[in-house]
């Protein structure tokens, strides 16, 4: 089947089988590698993408379902540069191995889009579906709160 899916602002016309999963198609047919294959059953969040503006697990979506929809991955959130969130995460060395980062950055990005002044609990809730084995999460949560603070211009 042919599908039209917008990936990071660019329309892709792709030939896919009904049994193909969106995650695999993004990686293999659109060359977008930031969504990672971690568990393939929705448990780990590594494959998180923004789908019509909201985070979903791309391992739980058939590629054919994405026909006519808009996908944004980590490659696409910053436009030309970096978001404040990304900059803060670099400065605060938030990640270790980095495999969870594409999912966590998007999950936190979605939160900050909806709530510029989240509490620590809100941040923990927003990324609680994204498993990280390295960091103990605290340096990630700290960076999300710090980025929000800077964006708000709060002291």
């Amino acid at each position, binding site marked *: 089947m042919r599908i039209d899916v917008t990936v990071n602002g660019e329309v892709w016309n792709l030939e896919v*089988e009904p*049994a193909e999963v969106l995650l695999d198609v993004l*990686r293999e047919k659109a*060359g977008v*590698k*930031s969504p*990672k*294959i*971690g*568990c*393939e*059953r929705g*448990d*780990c969040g*590594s494959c998180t993408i923004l789908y019509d503006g909201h985070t979903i697990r791309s391992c739980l979506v058939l590629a054919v379902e994405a026909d006519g929809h808009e996908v944004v*991955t*980590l*490659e696409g959130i*910053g436009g030309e540069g*970096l978001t404040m969130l*990304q900059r803060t*995460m*670099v*400065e*605060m*060395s*938030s*990640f*270790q*191995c*980095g*495999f*969870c*980062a*594409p999912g966590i*950055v998007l999950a936190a990005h979605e939160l900050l889009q909806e709530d510029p002044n989240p509490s620590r609990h809100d*941040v*923990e*809730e927003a*990324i*609680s*579906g*994204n*498993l*990280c*084995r*390295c*960091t*103990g*999460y*605290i*340096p*990630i*949560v700290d960076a999300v709160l710090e980025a929000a603070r800077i964006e708000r211009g709060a002291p």
Partner: protein
Amino acid sequence: MTDTYVGKADAANAMEDLQVVGTGAPRIDGLDKVTGAAEYVDDIDFGPALLHASVVESPHAHARIVRIDTTRAEAEPGVVKVVTGADFPFTFGLYMQDRHVFAMDRVRFVGEQVAAVIARNARIAKRAASLVEVEYEVLDPILDPLGAISEGTELIHPDLGSYPRVPWFLPQAGTNISHWRKTRRGDLEAGFAEADVILEDTYTVPRYAHCAIEPHVVVGRLDQAGRLTLWTASQSPYTQRAVFAEALAPLGFSHQDIRVITPYVGGGFGGKAGVSMEIIGAALATAVKGRPVKVRWTREQEFYNTYQRQGVVANLKVGARRDGTITALEHTLYWDAGAYVEYGANVVNAAGLSATGPYRVPAVKIDSLCIYTNLPPGGPYRGFGYSEFHFGLESHMTRLAQRLGIDPVEFRRINAIAEGDTLAYGEPMNPSGLREAIDRTAAAIDWGTPAASDDPNVEIGKGLCLFWKAPAMPPNASSASFLKFNEDGSINITVSGMELGQGYLTVMAQVASEVLSVPTAKIRVETPDTDRNPYEWQTVASHVTWSCGNAVAAAAKEARDKIYQVVHDAHGYEEDSLYLEDEKVKCDTDPDFELPLADFVIDGIEMSDGTYRGGPIVGSGKFMPEFTSARSDPETSQGGHPNVHYTVGAAGVVVEVDRETGKIRVRKAALAADVGRAINPTLIEGQITGGLLQGLATVLYEDMRFDEQGRLLNPTFTDYKIPTSKDVPDEIVPIIIEVPQPDGPFGARGVGEHTMIAAAPVIADAVADAVGVRLTDMPITAERVALAILEANGR
């Protein structure tokens, strides 16, 4: 201090006024990781020629293979090749060759690879793998280590006695004991006779999974010219090359024919050390010459067919005098090592040398038995045996102190090992800040000050435990580094340690930066390619900061010496009057002289006659400990020097326990580690936070569950769940202690693994303190606590 462990200490370094070492410089890989630029093995494109493999697995824990029929799978359109053990009758293994590429005559655990289908895409491979027919003669599975060593039990490896192995492994042929490390020191009988109190008990620790978020993956390609390249998600590119070369020698391969490339790796924790599933990729590549072939483990396979942390049953007996002095310790560890122990037996070995914990113990008897079972292969996991034995040991020390009527922290102060004290294997202890760690951890959790909760269902408890660990390495494990300058004065460093997330690349950059005055932002440290990067044994054992840090420092110093040489040749300044500052060469004797590195590190220095001096500046360095030896008396472990040094520390927690639900909330966790020198304190705090949570997970939540047929019941993140962002302690207090390691780079020693070692016993202690129940089996889940409280209340 004796000179045995000093190596080539660089006293001058320790004295220097450091500019970069000791700062929390941002990670040099940070940008790659927050932008999606970081490339992992599965992200590399191999084009339309790429083939995919799916593995046919044993459904039985113990069975003879009677017949394999691949006909139907081979007939499936899109299948390129189907292979079985008969195609690769080769053994492999890191320390003992007890494995085959595919099971040959028998299978020894559920999930063991029996055959593989190589196909044009993953869907076809998966479908065709289900068409391979394997007939088994099912045998009784041996799942319990104590059962495995009882009289008359069937041998899981009848050929154990003939397996090639390293000299420090001591297999007991004709049994299921694949290695038995015995450590004996002092007069045990007299020690216990001298004791006023003797406490004896048994502690059990189940199996655990690493749960790196990136699954194992390998791509192998044998090109038309006969060159075999492997892209692997690995902690050990050079060790893998060596194991591949050894295993595939019958096909004519040697080291020069094999290249291992390892980009970023998505977490390791020991699980990607050595060679596990990667041997399949190497073998399959040889079967489809010219085509790259990918094997990517599913999350389920990740759980049941890589290394697992071994379970252990530990019998522990410790005696002490009324004044609190420990007089004797007897520790017997029965390890459930699984179907193959080519790596796991070294975990058993490490524990067998150090299962006294960080205590001064005059009389010691340790037996650490590596026992084959029909469960998945055991192997390295962050902590390498120490996490496992510390649970019982540290629980026991607290209980012994309480039995003596001595405060458990004071008891630890009395017995804590100090520099120069004799270790169980007879060598002296290295410098350490253990007492400072105890004091600062105790202060961080207000030890001795009772705390109460407003909630009538909730009790507060505290615990404080010690930890230690030495790298477990072959005596000659070594590291090497190349360093080159570029035209703009930037630097590329090649090493073959792995960036597992710990921040290794950043630390190596900081070491070079300190020596050469080039900021870390201008230093790239490249991930390994065994064709190009110099040797590194493996990125395990928390040793690369220490070992490879020394190699990078040596390479940087060699480059610095060459810089001074060329400046001397061109300008005539004495070399010992020159120094580097702000990317310039400067001179003590001529304050006006300064020469930017970028001006000459490639092009050289132009002389008045138009000729040039110098040329591209490069450096190389290596490090190998030259004081270690694995040769010792097999009956006592005396006479060798197996460990380079120990990193020590303490951990403390304050927990809330709900008496009804058993739920445990960690209000505060403090961890002090003596890192020798904190090259990057931010990264060390990262290790403390992440390692503590991983350790807390092993005690509060996780364990692997098997049924009576040896099948893993929870091979998913749904049911072997790891903590989420909502499951972290309310507060973590990292405490960095710096008592320099004389032979470490700027005094540094490793700390990666240590941060999870004390987590389990400290929770056991805090729960006991809060609600009065002492649990001696891990994990200590809400369920177990609640049921134990009910039982204690007679319900």
